[in-house]
């Protein structure tokens, strides 16, 4: 059976919160997965006391496990692919026509 990397929706009405899970393709969305490899909070947030108006989204991800599951043939869904491609685990699936280069990645703190 196909193993997928996908999102499982939790949270409440109008306040989604996703687990990034590895699960068999034909199991129910929120059933117990093979493994939870991260979370995705899709609601953009501001830093407290930040007046610049910049928004950020928080994602927790075990990159090693994600790479492992992709190595053994797990198939990310489109949304999961997008997230994994942001950290460079996968190439972008739908590179946008307008921008040639990938979004800028900065590893802060390890400079």
């Amino acid at each position, binding site marked *: 059976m196909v193993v997928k990397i996908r999102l*499982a929706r*939790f*949270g*409440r009405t109008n306040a989604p*919160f996703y*687990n*990034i*899970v590895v699960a068999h393709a034909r199991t129910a969305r929120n059933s*117990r997965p093979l*493994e*939870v*490899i*991260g*979370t995705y909070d899709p609601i*953009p947030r501001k830093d*407290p*006391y930040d007046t610049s108006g*910049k*928004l*950020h*989204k*928080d*994602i*927790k*991800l*075990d*990159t090693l*496990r994600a790479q492992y599951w992709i190595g053994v043939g797990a198939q990310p869904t489109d949304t999961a692919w997008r*997230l994994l491609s*942001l*950290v460079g685990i996968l190439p972008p699936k739908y590179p946008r026509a307008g921008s040639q280069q990938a*979004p*800028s*990645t*900065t*590893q*802060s*703190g*390890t400079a």
Partner: protein
Amino acid sequence: MPPRIPGGGCRPQQLLTSLEAPTPSCTLPAPALALRPRQPPTASSSRPLSTTPRCSSKTESTKPPPQLTRVRRKFLDFLEHSSMLRKSKVLKEPTYLSNNVVTRSEGEVVQRDMPFPNNPYFRSQSVLSAVSRERVWSEVMEGGMPIKAVAAKYSVDVRRVTAVVRMMEIEKRWEREGKPLAYAYARSMGHLVPQHNVRAESKFEPINDLHVHSHTMQQLFVPTSESRHFTRADAARAFGEHILPPEARMRIPELVDMERKIAQGVPPPVAGAEFIAAARESEQEIAARNFERARSKEARTVRVQTDRFEFRFEKIDSEAVGPKGRSRTAVGWRYGVPLMDRRRAEVKIPTSMD
């Protein structure tokens, strides 16, 4: 079964002790309340009914004048006689009801700082003035004094010092940005609320408060030999294994060390300098811990900038889920745990804002 007597409380001991303290005589039936500038009753009753009262003429000019009942007449008299409480703009010092209007029956003391004439246990205590806030801020941010030392110097609670500094930083930033601040409001609050100017050796509030733990509110009978040296630490242990002695619960335990040194003969300036050094050291320890936590989190984080949002990927270990795979600290929304959202009286709003 609680005692069914009037005034029988849940804490008979405290009730007894507090009843010994002077209670207001208003608990007796029919206390004598009197207006200080008392006017003969004929003056108010002879008021022509056709004229609307002056105080309400502005707002109620379109309505017919309210019927002047006895209580309304009393009300209008009260407004006339307490006109000094009305003009908040021209008042230059705290002005409360107790001191200005209410005179009680014989022999009772009404204090200046009692906003509620019935409650002598609540006083309008002073707040730090704008000058004091500025000074505390400059001592901490410009002088580099440790917060505990500033707190001990001016006898201001440590938490208050941090709050003052935190808000002054915002104030300074807004001033730099040219944001309009509420100067007019602040000035009139400075007149209406009692102010305290910090000076060394002037007490503002107790700085070594201990919260009274509920375990220590019971009476204990601990049989022990008369020769035993039974200290505070022993007493704490008698109340419970997890109850800490006061030395460990004080906010500024360094002060005790300083006093001990002074009692042993160390000159006070030297002991004071050592106190400041100890306070600085303890603060630096906490700061280093916080910094290390923030640094390690930053090292785990990858920031990806897109057109609209910044995505922050935090590296985690998905296998730290505990022996049964159901650890509370495991990543993600937990499986197999019912969402108690719809249960009655469940708190659905945030319990903390970080």
